[in-house]
């Protein structure tokens, strides 16, 4: 094995410079440690507080709306740590093994030994396959938002937003504010589900009221909001031309040239898997997630989790979880840490978690969609496998476990390693095999967590060590 001739104690390594990673870094620096922060994005901020690629005249208010102050604070606080930590942007952590991380920067791979690994890898959109969902012009809600935030452009001249979750309304509202033409918002949940939000009022009145205000503003702007939307089909020859759906037993159809689609979020858990963390099924997220205690410790000593990568909880929770888990790392090293602060953070996280229950009830995941997915619909886009081919593989080989399904059908074997299709594949497998979703397992992760070039170069230091 390659050795690193380091005399100093290795640094704690933080993966992700989103709200969770930034607050964790800040707490470690405050305690006198010097963490290394890596993020594949060119600038800090993570998903929600992503920065634009170049100044384009838009203000924070334009970009982040009601969250502008939080975004500015976070960016500023991270900038203030300059010199007290090491920060590698555009650095993809693609493999973890034996206490070392393989990190790609500009086509070169460096191996970094770490002492304490803090994973703050965030989340991406969750989707289920639909007829036409692979047509150009269909974006995830996150993709639609990135187009707006970092490039300042809309995904179409007449856009429909489809899905479930608070982001559906948020992104639609951001598009409206940016002056884009939003044709409609199609919510997969019935209107009645929204009454659940009232239960959230005592917990977070500000957030609930802001949501209501956004909905009202969308309506005022003449944007149609449809609830209980099902049997959705996206139509078009070579790109999106229209969207059709059923609602209250009636057929609807709307022409459009861009669709933003998402069914809430799913955690990025591959690195926790490579780090050897134990996983367990989480009913609220309908996903198998790395186990952690209230502070964010995993089953592997020295490996910590914070933010949406450990389970969906939103940006405010991510900031608190990042700080909380950093305190745990300090405590585990026998360093002074503020126990009262840790307790307060945990209490806030528990409150946010109760609010999550409310949001799940108000924006339920339409898991039942998979029952009716047409055989011809593409399920795994990387490997171009249809739902029918997946069903046939399940039945021919008699499989009832997700990795076995991957082995015999290629589902999840492509570029994205199942990030996009695994949720749908698991739902379909559970349904076809007559099992609960919790009984079909999860796709094991393999390095590289994202594709790397074959010509990836090893750093000179490593070559010398060999």
């Amino acid at each position, binding site marked *: 094995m390659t050795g690193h001739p380091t005399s100093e104690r290795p640094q704690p390594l933080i993966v992700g410079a989103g709200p969770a990673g930034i607050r964790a870094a800040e707490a470690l620096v405050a305690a006198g440690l010097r963490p290394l922060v890596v993020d594949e994005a060119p600038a800090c901020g993570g998903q929600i507080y992503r920065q634009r690629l170049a100044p384009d005249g838009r203000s924070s208010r334009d970009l982040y709306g009601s969250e502008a102050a939080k975004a500015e604070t976070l960016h500023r606080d991270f900038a203030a740590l300059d010199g007290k930590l090491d920060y590698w942007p555009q650095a993809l952590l693609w493999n973890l*093994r034996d206490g070392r991380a*393989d990190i790609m920067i500009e086509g070169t*791979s460096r191996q970094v030994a770490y002492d304490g690994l803090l994973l703050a890898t965030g989340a991406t959109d969750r989707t289920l396959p639909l007829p036409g969902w692979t047509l150009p012009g269909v974006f995830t809600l996150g993709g639609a938002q990135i187009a707006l935030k970092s490039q300042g452009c809309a995904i179409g001249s007449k856009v429909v937003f489809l899905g479930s979750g608070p982001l559906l309304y948020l992104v639609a509202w951001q598009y409206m504010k940016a002056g884009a033409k939003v044709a409609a918002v199609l919510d997969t949940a019935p209107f009645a589900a929204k009454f659940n939000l009232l239960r959230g009022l005592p917990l977070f009145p500000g957030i609930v009221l802001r949501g209501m205000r956004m909905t009202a503003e969308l309506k005022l702007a003449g944007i149609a909001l449809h609830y209980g939307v099902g049997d959705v089909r996206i139509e078009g020859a070579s790109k999106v031309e229209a969207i059709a759906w059923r609602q209250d037993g009636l057929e609807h159809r709307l022409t459009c040239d861009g669709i933003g689609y998402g069914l809430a979020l799913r955690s990025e858990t591959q690195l926790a898997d490579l780090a050897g963390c134990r996983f367990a099924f989480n009913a609220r997220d309908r996903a198998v997630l790395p186990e952690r205690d209230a502070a964010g410790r995993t089953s592997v000593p020295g490996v910590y989790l914070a933010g949406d990568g450990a389970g969906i909880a939103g940006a405010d929770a991510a900031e608190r979880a990042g700080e909380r888990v950093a305190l745990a790392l300090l405590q585990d090293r026998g360093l002074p840490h503020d126990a009262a602060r840790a307790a307060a953070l945990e209490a806030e996280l528990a409150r946010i978690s109760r609010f999550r229950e409310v949001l799940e009830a108000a924006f339920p995941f339409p898991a039942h969609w998979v029952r009716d997915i047409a055989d011809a619909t593409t399920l795994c886009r990387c490997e171009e496998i249809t739902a029918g081919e997946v069903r046939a593989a399940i039945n021919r080989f008699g499989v009832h476990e997700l990795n076995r399904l991957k082995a015999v059908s290629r589902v999840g074997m492509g570029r994205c390693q199942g990030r996009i299709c695994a949720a749908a594949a698991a739902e379909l497998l559970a349904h076809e095999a007559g099992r609960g979703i919790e009984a079909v397992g999860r796709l094991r992760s*393999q*390095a590289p967590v994202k594709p*790397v070039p074959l010509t990836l170069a*090893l750093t000179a230091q490593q070559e010398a060590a060999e």
Partner: protein
Amino acid sequence: MSRRLEVDVAIIGGGLVGSSAALALRGLGFSVALLDKGFCGAQASGVNYGGVRRQGRPIEQLPLSQRAHAVWPRLRALIGIDGEFLRSGHLKLARDEADMASLEAYAEAVAEQGLDLELIGHNGLRERFGWIGDGIVGASFCPGDGHANPRLVSTGFAAAARRAGVEVLENTAVEGVTRDGGGFALEAAGNLTLRSRFVVNSAGAWAAPFAESFGEPVPLSRIYPSMVVTEPMEPVMSVNIGMEGGGIYARQVERGNIVVGGERALPLNDPDLSRPRGDGAIAIMNNAAALFPGLRHAQAIRFWSGTEGAMPDKNPVIGPSETTHGLIHAFGFTGAGFQIAPGVGEVLAELVRDGETQTPIAAFSIGRFRETSARTDAGSGAGQNQEPQH
């Protein structure tokens, strides 16, 4: 809850060896139970590189390998799928004159074995395989060899065995085997007790404790070959590529991805699990990009490895136990069991039915380790009543 089952043959291990034996035995009319501690075909047999090659094997393996060679084109009739088996040919490259000389020597040694090897010089290579980069002086081509999809083939054999009436018991680890009257008693996970007249020990890298419990210790070790796969590419690589003296091996699958093997992975804390080392994977990738200029802009999308049982002389153990009637071993394929497994399955079925086979397997006898690892098991009754030691 405890369960009892009685069969003619109990097979420990549902890899390609165990499941092809199960299918063949069923074809001869035996009742069979196929037990696997996990899922059938999920270990070496399902995660290997997929090389279906005779070329390069030790000469004593060739009769068995030829027998398997006859099975591969019949997969569709046998298991209902072709397993993406492609008789593409296998091209073994020589990097220098010394390598070329050993390819020539091999071709001469196996001239009577029906491999139809063709030696190709530098210019011939340029003409026929222009996608191979510089630095190769010549090659040996075996036109009848090829490659297949291990994930489908191995799972397919187990599924076909199940359809043929084999009792396939997955997630059912065998915890102990003992002699019991005229047959065997197996204790397995989930409180399963199984009685059988014959036991086939095809537990792959995990087979040694079963042999040892019958007084036959074997020097079985583990290897973990490293694999890398690229995103799908235009069809370029028309043959399965190997290299004299090791290095890398590569093939292009039906879908277009290029699978490249080489180097060795390392086990994780749990020695049943392994993963390629980052630097090892990079070495494979760089070697592939150097050897195949068409891959210079390709991306690797996944690495993996698998747990394989290896013997010091690189030959498997195949044949009846020398201590215990009714026990038959088949393990230790040392990185090359995928191609021959379907032939091994047929041989195992014959050993059960006839006590012998026409295919020469003497070189694979477990007795060859009797001297080297002799162990006096005082008073153990040749280990007949011992539990396997895990």
